[in-house]
């Protein structure tokens, strides 16, 4: 059983943060909220998301697992204005999701969860550096780097206490430094890793510009990007494997 009412912008933000990585996903319907974990086919980018029951206007379930085509569900959710409410109800017999938006009714065929790629284990990472900054600073770094290159280096200079971004292209370079004063918080440690901008650009799309983003970094290690959606009722963590220079 699953029956919930949620505001369109909350549902859209939730779906967007997963759909930048995968086309289909499993949604765990837990009593205290939704949980989604997914990894892209190349096993390079991962998302771990939870949306608390309190993010919903109403939320009832006795547990369950459904598989959805994200772009279909996003299209439907996109029919609603941001402040409109979306009613979701699972039909256990037909395995379809009934979606109602202000008189508009849509029946979405679900996907057998067994046919969706297995959910990844979360890598157990012990990352020495942590940077807390605003989403808009990530956006600025990613956009500028994308003008010159296909990859980006994120690092922490632990002698000067600053977070830096480097992108090297054929002829042009981008460099950005954010000192402890520019950042919300900084735990300096030895960290520098190279990442594919293809992935980071997609993740960046889902990060609200006013969100507080916690970035965990290491030396040639995956990066963890954590932020909140739905006014703190939703937690999103991205993990991205680096491009390795030392091999």
């Amino acid at each position, binding site marked *: 059983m699953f029956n919930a009412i949620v505001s369109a912008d909350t549902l859209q933000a939730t779906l967007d943060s997963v759909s930048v990585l995968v086309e289909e996903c499993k949604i765990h319907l837990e009593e205290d909220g939704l949980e989604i974990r997914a990894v892209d086919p190349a*096993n390079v980018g991962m998302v771990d998301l939870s949306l608390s029951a309190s993010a919903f206007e109403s939320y009832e379930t006795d547990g369950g697992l459904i598989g959805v085509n994200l772009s279909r569900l996003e299209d439907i959710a996109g029919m609603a204005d941001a402040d409109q409410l979306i009613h979701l109800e699972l039909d256990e017999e037909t395995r379809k999701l009934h979606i109602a938006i202000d008189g508009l009714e849509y029946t979405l065929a679900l996907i057998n969860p067994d046919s969706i790629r297995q959910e990844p284990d979360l890598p157990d990472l012990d990352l020495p550096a942590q940077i807390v900054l605003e989403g808009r600073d990530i956006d600025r770094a990613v956009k500028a780097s994308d003008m010159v290159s296909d990859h980006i280096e994120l690092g922490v200079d632990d002698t000067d206490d600053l977070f830096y971004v480097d992108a090297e292209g054929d002829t042009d370079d981008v460099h950005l430094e954010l000192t402890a004063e520019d950042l919300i918080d900084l735990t300096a440690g030895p960290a520098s890793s190279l990442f*594919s901008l293809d992935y980071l650009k997609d993740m960046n799309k889902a990060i609200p510009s006013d969100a507080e983003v916690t970035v965990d970094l290491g030396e*040639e290690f*995956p990066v963890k990007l954590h932020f909140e959606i739905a006014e703190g009722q939703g937690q999103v963590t991205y*993990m991205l494997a680096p491009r*390795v*220079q030392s*091999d």
Partner: protein
Amino acid sequence: MRLDDFIEDFQRDEAAEKRRLAEEKSYEITNYLDEVEREFERAVSGESLFGATAPEIFVGRSSYPNVSTGVLSPVTDGDAADFATSGEWYQQGLGVSEVLQRRTGLLNSTRSANVDVRDVWDGFVGVQREVAIADHPVDVEVGLDGEPDIDLSLDDVGAPTGPRASAESATLAENPHVPRPVKKTLEDDDWRAEGAMTYLYRRGFDVYDINTILSAGALGRGRDRRLVPTRWSITAVDDTVGQFLRGGIRNASTISETEVWYNEYMGNRYWVVLTPGQWEFELVEMKAPDSVWNPAGEAYYLASAHEGYEGRTGYVEETAGAYYASRLGVLEHLNDRGRQAKCLVLREVTDDYWAPVGVWQVREGVRNAFDGQHGETETFRQAVTEVTEQLPVSLGALRRKSELVAGLQAKLSDF
């Protein structure tokens, strides 16, 4: 073999090869062109109708969808099949001037036609399509409208074409033999072109044959059947067959060592570096000043294109058809071994490559790089560092241009 021993071995042969290429560059081609012109005049003199054996077709791309479409036929004596582009040319060791000779010996009898050829099996276009699907050169009679125009045209993707003459008509002088798999793809007009192309490939047709068949609009769903300009069709077939092969190694286990393979053909040097890991591919081209595609340059011109495990979504802005041709060569090799790998192809175009002969040269250069021995190193980084010593560019410049040299994509499960 250790990579440094491997490099030393072929360096000895290089000096001899260089002398041979220098001789070849002697512009004997201009004398040859005069001769071709005389041959043509003799063959088509005063008569508007002539008999010919056509091994191939050509579809132009300008003013698409009303394109110039033609049958290519040798006017000089000899086996018509020798004039068709194929991997055979590599096996025979043809050089730049020999390729130009063969191709300039082909008269392109053209007519303008609309690309929509759904049910067209008569008239000039019909004859052209029959030539394309046949498995051997076809005897045709071409009615020319005026004198041939001796004009050599070069292209970076397609093989060069020779003189052109506008044709009024063409008729078949024999009943062409069409191989059974081609009949099957031809008759099934519900079959998407991609699927039909890979079917033919799996039935042992090389990309050269498939390209000609696709170009004649003989594959795909009925309503989608169009003449496909030769240049586009070459890339489409390399890409489609490449995607099919890539799918085949998607879940394969990875190679275990970093390997360096090398080949040199027509003044093009190919270094293929394979390293353990999940599929990733990159072509980096370094074009010498004074080579054909960098005639006015003062420094090496660098171009690159890259794809990850899931392939590309965007158009290849640099390296164009050479990207798909070289990728095909690598994927064929990995499929034979049933392994996947990360692959960096470095192509150095020296100034000995004095006229472009088409991407078949890249395809065969890379395909045949896997024929001989290879060198091995502990790491990808070591392979790239050692290979760069043989290249005309610095490691720093290469790192800026190459996604793989900058860093190899790791998987989350590696941590």
